[in-house]
């Protein structure tokens, strides 16, 4: 007998709205890393990210009935809430310093990557992402780091798909420019000339 299929996020959201405690716990364990990762990449602060993660799931407790599966995936909805909390947290003077980037980089430093050059390039890119203007940073984080579809990213950001695309393109162009000026190579691997 085949094991029962894991319920989708959307099913869990519906059950949470009906007061299902187990569904909430399940969604929390499943999506907590996504929310945390998004918050770290968006804020540059591990402390903010931990707070935001809790805040997002507090919001789920009180607002699960507002979620509409026809409009976006549950993951996009969660990241949209996280985005608002990150913005608020970064707006607070004590937590908006760029020094927070160091906290996020400490997360990278804790990862046992063998290659120092590779770690440096990752750290440089992470810093460059954090220094992007918020609207471009959000698009890059959602689409490239969280790998949301354009449609889900648009739902999370509350804007049109075309807007997401243009912000993403602009954000990536800024990243490339910044990394060139920082003399931090993006990658050291040789890419094929005819890629497509």
């Amino acid at each position, binding site marked *: 007998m085949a094991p029962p299929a894991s319920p989708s996020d959307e099913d869990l959201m519906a059950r949470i709205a009906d007061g299902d405690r187990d569904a909430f716990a399940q969604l929390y364990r499943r999506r907590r890393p996504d929310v945390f990762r998004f918050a770290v990449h968006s804020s540059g602060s591990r402390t903010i990210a931990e707070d935001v993660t809790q805040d997002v799931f507090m919001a789920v407790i009180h607002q699960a009935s507002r979620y509409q599966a026809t409009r976006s995936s549950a993951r996009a909805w969660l990241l949209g809430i996280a985005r608002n909390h990150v913005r608020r947290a970064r707006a607070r003077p004590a937590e908006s310093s760029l020094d927070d980037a160091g906290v996020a980089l400490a997360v990278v430093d804790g990862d046992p990557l063998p290659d120092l050059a590779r770690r440096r390039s990752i750290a440089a*890119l992470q810093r460059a992402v954090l220094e992007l203007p918020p609207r471009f940073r959000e698009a890059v984080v959602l689409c490239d780091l969280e790998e949301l579809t354009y449609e889900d990213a648009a739902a999370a950001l509350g804007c049109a798909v075309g807007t997401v695309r243009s912000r993403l393109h602009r954000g990536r162009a800024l990243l490339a420019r910044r990394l060139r000026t920082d003399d931090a190579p993006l990658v050291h691997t040789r*890419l094929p000339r005819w890629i497509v």
Partner: protein
Amino acid sequence: MKCSMVEPWLVDVARGVSLDAATLERVRDHVRQCRGCAARLERERAISAALHRVAEAMEPPSWPPSAEAALLDAFDRARAEPRRSRVWTAYAAAAAVFALAAALAWTRPPAAAPNRNPAPPPTHRGIAPSISAANAGTRDAPAKREPNRAASSRASRPPAARTEFISWPGASELPAFESGHLMRVDLPASMALSLGLVRSADTAVVQADVLIGQDGFARAVRLAP
């Protein structure tokens, strides 16, 4: 094909977004012939690869059990709270209904009302299918009816009384009705007349059921059956 026509798709190609075959072929053809766009595509690929490594490098923290426990506690508390808030909403709605009734009674003298003989207003759209649900959800309705039996002896039951629900004035502009409660009230006769519940009244008050929506606003009213 010009570079400007290919450019919007280069990032998608680099990111691995699925494109339709014709578009992909056009981009391929152009990139084979254009060194600038080929370099741009290579750069976009490099950015995607680097961002992918950034995403992989991020390890989530080890979550303390207290974080989940705190949220589950909050979940339990939130599930307990709505019952209390519904009671307060019902009280607030009752106060609002009585305040409105008093205001209407003050501004409309009862003597003038019978001459108006208003046509029965249309039934509130969207209310009718929900009324049975609202009745079903009113667990304390029977308890409230008992004390009002005494009041019903002094309240008139005029002929041509409306015992079906009719829309509360202005209710059509409120958010959609989702759920609600019935509340039995003593309406001033003048208000019952102006609402079209009765065509004439020879007593001061008329007993009615007011349907209160999920937001605490009155949606519909009927004469108490």
